[in-house]
């Protein structure tokens, strides 16, 4: 659960490109056709088994579909919970690794030193997704988010958030440095 600070606004939420989820769905659909293909093959080469062992085949198929469904959703959780949230004050990088490992890192938006993007390969170029790297001045220097859709646009938005945060910080600094009235003079 992400807890935002009182005056913090979420400005950008980044997830991996939809093509990654579509690839998982396509693979799961293909694997779901496995029992159908197996029954078709049995009908062709061993029809006696279908007649006598249909209950066993149905049981095996139900276990297979249950395992496939759970494995598919474990992958969906991994995809769904990999997210970068850019707010007015910080960037929160959440990476889910499997079901029982979750890494959350955040850095102040003012610590951003460099933002770069890398798009490698035919499919990423066609569908415009790639790696977004942010160099910071913190303990962990580099943050990477892979398979980001439209990474150049994301880079521009992060830099715009940084500029806005710098402006706010300067304004706040100027206001606090104003001379105070002393004794009505």
């Amino acid at each position, binding site marked *: *659960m*992400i807890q935002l600070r009182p005056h913090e606004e*979420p400005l950008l*939420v980044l997830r991996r490109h939809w093509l990654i989820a579509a690839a998982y769905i396509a693979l799961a659909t293909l694997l779901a056709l496995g029992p159908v293909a197996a029954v078709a093959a049995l009908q062709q080469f061993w029809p*006696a*088994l279908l007649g*006598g*062992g249909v*209950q*066993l085949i*149905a*049981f095996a*198929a*139900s*276990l297979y*579909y*249950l*395992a496939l*469904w*759970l494995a598919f*959703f*474990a992958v*969906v*959780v991994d995809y*769904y*919970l990999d*997210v970068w*949230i850019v707010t007015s004050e910080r960037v929160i990088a959440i990476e*889910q690794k499997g*079901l*029982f490992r979750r890494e959350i890192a955040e850095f102040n938006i003012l610590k951003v030193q460099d933002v770069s993007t890398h798009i490698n390969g035919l499919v990423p170029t066609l569908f415009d997704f790639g790696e977004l790297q942010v160099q910071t001045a913190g303990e962990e220097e580099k943050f990477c988010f892979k398979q980001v859709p439209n990474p150049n646009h994301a880079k521009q938005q992060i830099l715009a958030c940084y500029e806005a945060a710098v402006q706010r910080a300067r304004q706040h600094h100027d206001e606090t440095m104003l001379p105070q009235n002393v004794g009505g003079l």
Partner: protein
Amino acid sequence: MFLIAAIIFLFILAAALAAAAAIAWHFLTYRIPGDLGVWLASLFLVATAVLIASAIASFMAVPWDNLAELFAHLTP
């Protein structure tokens, strides 16, 4: 034969239920405002319940005590 099959099936079912609970917990806990986490969690829970019910029903339909005879009949 039925007893052995039931014990093995219960182990498999327990593992499946644990995995389903972990996945459902993730969907229901890590909700980011504005997303479809609740929809996905509902779909997942309903479909998992249906698949577990069908696995149990199909397990009960298998003639476990007559299985050896069934395979003896089927082999040439």
